[in-house]
């Protein structure tokens, strides 16, 4: 156990879940300081505004493997384990957690759950909610509770695991997680298509619903993002236009067949270019797609969730505002890096307000994904209340009645 001071934030590094539970209990009874759970700090700019003071709970020492029955393909670890460390352990057994996590050398498992982080593969493998089979967490009063277990199928009791997904450290501190794992695929390749019109992009994406292939990811980027992604991947790729990049995983012959098949299928949509990225380069390019959503130095990164059929309308509006766009296109998840010209808070608010107009407010959401930390107090993370917001508030009050867990952040999530 150690206790460090850093600016206005004290730091507490628990060595065990019990120690953390005790600390939170004592805090709830006595000091009642604000508590900020911190994993790899990769989402801190939005999750923990710099102006806040209180105690930061650093989960870095909660990084032990509790149980890894390899042949059952499940693993139980403490929530502070870094994703790279987890991947290394399970990869040695030919297994993986099929969730794409940017900055995985720093990001922790608990953080991935709290921020509901996902990437391109979500199209075929789902998100972290689909892999958490058990969870332990500590609420604002210090109660260490669990839900689920260590088997892949289990409906005993309420599924409290789910409420922790996307909770941004405001409901309870995730301390231990059991995961369902998957086998690693034999190989992967990507196919890079360039299109000169939004219309053809939309036609191609629409045709994907009946494609003879089964992609693992369908990524879209506009030319601004495509240029950055191509440069970062150090591959010679045409990037002056709209790009759709599709990935396939599986046995080598099956992957190759699908890559050729999609090129054949999409000829009718007149791509300017189509190029198969062979397995040796595909992993590098794929990683760039995974990292891109957090890789920007731009002041604000937006995330929009829309119906896939309405995505290109949003993309067009965003592109006109000089925003670099990457999207998990088959899921309607869009990331937008604002241009450097958006240098003031007013500029950002204006862009947000313009973009909100191109989202159907009944079936679409705009959120701030990353931003300059001094702006994070001033921007609502959720640009509109999500469905069930009143229940979310009740849940927050029930699990954290003293409003100690990152509570200012919670009240600021929605613009009032």
């Amino acid at each position, binding site marked *: 156990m150690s206790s460090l001071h850093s600016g206005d934030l004290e730091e507490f590094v628990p060595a065990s879940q019990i120690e953390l539970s005790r600390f939170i209990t004592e805090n709830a009874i006595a000091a009642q300081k604000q508590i900020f759970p911190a994993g790899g700090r990769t989402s801190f700019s939005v999750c923990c505004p710099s102006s806040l003071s209180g105690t930061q709970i650093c989960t870095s020492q909660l990084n032990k493997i509790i149980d890894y*029955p390899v*042949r*059952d*393909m499940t693993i139980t670890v403490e929530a502070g384990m870094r994703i790279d460390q987890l991947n290394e352990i399970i990869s040695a057994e030919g297994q993986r957690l099929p969730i794409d996590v940017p900055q995985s050398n720093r990001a922790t498992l608990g953080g991935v759950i709290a921020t*509901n982080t996902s990437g391109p593969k*979500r199209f075929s493998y*789902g*998100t972290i*909610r*689909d892999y958490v089979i058990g969870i332990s967490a500590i*609420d604002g009063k210090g*109660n260490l*509770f*669990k*839900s689920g*277990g*260590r*088997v*892949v*199928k*289990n*409906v*005993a*009791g*309420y*599924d409290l*695991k*789910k*409420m922790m*997904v*996307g909770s941004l450290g405001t409901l309870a501190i995730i301390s231990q997680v059991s995961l369902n794992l998957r*086998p*690693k695929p034999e190989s992967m390749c990507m196919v890079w298509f360039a299109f000169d019109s939004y219309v053809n992009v939309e036609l191609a994406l629409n045709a994907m*619903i*009946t494609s*003879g*292939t*089964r992609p693992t990811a369908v990524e879209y980027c506009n030319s601004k993002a495509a240029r950055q992604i191509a440069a970062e991947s150090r591959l010679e790729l045409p990037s002056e236009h709209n790009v759709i990049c599709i990935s396939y995983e*599986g*046995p080598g012959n*099956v992957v190759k067949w*699908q890559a050729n098949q999609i090129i054949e299928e999409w000829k009718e949509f007149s791509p300017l270019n189509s190029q198969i990225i062979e397995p040796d380069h595909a992993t590098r390019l794929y990683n760039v797609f995974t990292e891109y959503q957090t890789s920007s130095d731009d002041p604000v990164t937006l995330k929009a*969730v829309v*119906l*896939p059929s309405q995505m290109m309308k949003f993309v067009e509006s965003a592109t006109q505002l000089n925003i670099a766009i990457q999207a*998990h296109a088959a899921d*309607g*998840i869009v990331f937008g890096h604002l241009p450097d010209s958006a240098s003031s808070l007013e500029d950002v608010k204006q862009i947000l307000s313009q973009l909100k107009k191109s989202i159907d407010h009944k*079936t679409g*959401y705009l959120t701030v994904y990353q931003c300059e930390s001094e702006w994070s107090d001033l921007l609502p993370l*959720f640009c509109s209340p*999500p*469905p*069930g917001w009143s*229940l*979310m508030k009740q*849940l927050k009050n*029930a*699990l954290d009645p003293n409003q100690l867990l990152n509570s200012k952040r919670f009240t600021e*999530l929605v613009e009032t």
Partner: protein
Amino acid sequence: MVEQTNQMMNQDPESLEELESGSASFSALVQQLTLIVGEAGILFDADELLVYECDGYIVDKTAPDIVVFPTTTAQISAIVKRCNQFNVPFLARGAGTSLSGGCLPIGGGVMIVLTKMKNILEINLRDRYAVVEPGMVNLHLTNALKGTGYHYAPDPSSQGACTIGGNIATNSGGPHTLKYGVTTNHLLGLEAVLPDGSIIELGGPTAEVPGYDLHGLYVGNEGTFGICTKAIVRLTRDPESHRTMLAIFQTIGEATRAISEIIAAGIIPSALEMMDQGIIQAVEEAFHFGFPLDAGAVLLIEVDGLEIALDEEVRQILEICNSCNVREIQRADTPEERLLIWKSRKQAFGAIGRLSPSYCTQDGVVPRTRLPEILEFIEETSKRYGLRIVNVFHAGDGNVHPILLFDERDKEQIQKVMEASEAILDKCLELGGSVTGEHGIGVEKINFMSRIFNQIDLATMETVRNIFNPRQICSRDKVLPPHQTDGSSKITQSHPTRHAPH
């Protein structure tokens, strides 16, 4: 302090009224509900109510006082508001296929049957979702999607009867969950009437919504968070092709080893179903599929995906089965042959009906590699209690379904079934598993909750339930034991015929 006391009193389901047929409040409630659903939409005659006294769990029986058949969300909201006004408990029922007493109307009250709300409201292939009413029969949705290239993936064994609303309440699985997941993995959003009559929406048709995953929290609430009135479900692409095999093994240990090795080889079969010797003999006696009667286990293995990938997967599976001393493998390469193989699995329950007047299907889970231990224990338990127990189950998930055969008319046998079930489920826990993989806690397993979860876990679950259902007016006395500090069950006292395990 006064406020706290009131709150505690309000949370006690015993404060709810018990309706008495013919009483003034009964007549008034019937009249009010008739105004909402019409005379054709209400039952309150004792004989007609008998159908609703239990679901697929037949050990406990209690009839509701009134049954209503609403056709709209607004009607459900109005019914729930009347129940609150009269302080009468209510609960929802779909097809009544629950195997854990999820639809048991403890304390009587009003049962809201959703079978008239069975429409598909929207199918959107471009955005991969469908919106359906809660009484939609699971299989009817998949049938309606035929020819589109898409289907609804969760397929519980009762899919020909069970409803999507019931599937959401119990987080139903099925034989294809190993690859495709259970209901919670396919529910994008929902509309529900909360126990106070208000209408809420959670989640939505988009891939995700910001904030806490409340629709995820809602799935598996077993009817205690409210009444789901609309479901937005994800549609899954049909596989291009299937390959189905029946592998006959001498021992369960060899069959289990084959399962682990298939998955370790990177192949996730779409189904991995196991039948043990007892069920093989029953199926054979009834339907003559040609299974050797001395076989220890039969595995139904199905892989699906792109045609180009399947032959290699089948080759690997055959190689693995051979290395695990498989006795014989039957392959289905045509749709007709596939149907025949699945028939042997799906008719297993029909075969049991020929062996015994009643049976109790248990539902336990163990880590996949512990299957030989649990099956050996089940065999010992069968001998110890002198009960015939056969097994047909989802082996890939480690989800066992021991089927205990008995005669419902023999009280002593019922007691033995309860005790044997409890012993088996205890063993599942000892092996690191769970007492339910897909049937739910309901009333049947409520006393296990305090063995799986500690008081803090249960108190947290209660806190969460109280957000939705603070007075337990909606489907009372399910999932969570009455009060963790109070060992005696109030439910047992009010229902002396209950034989729930302790």
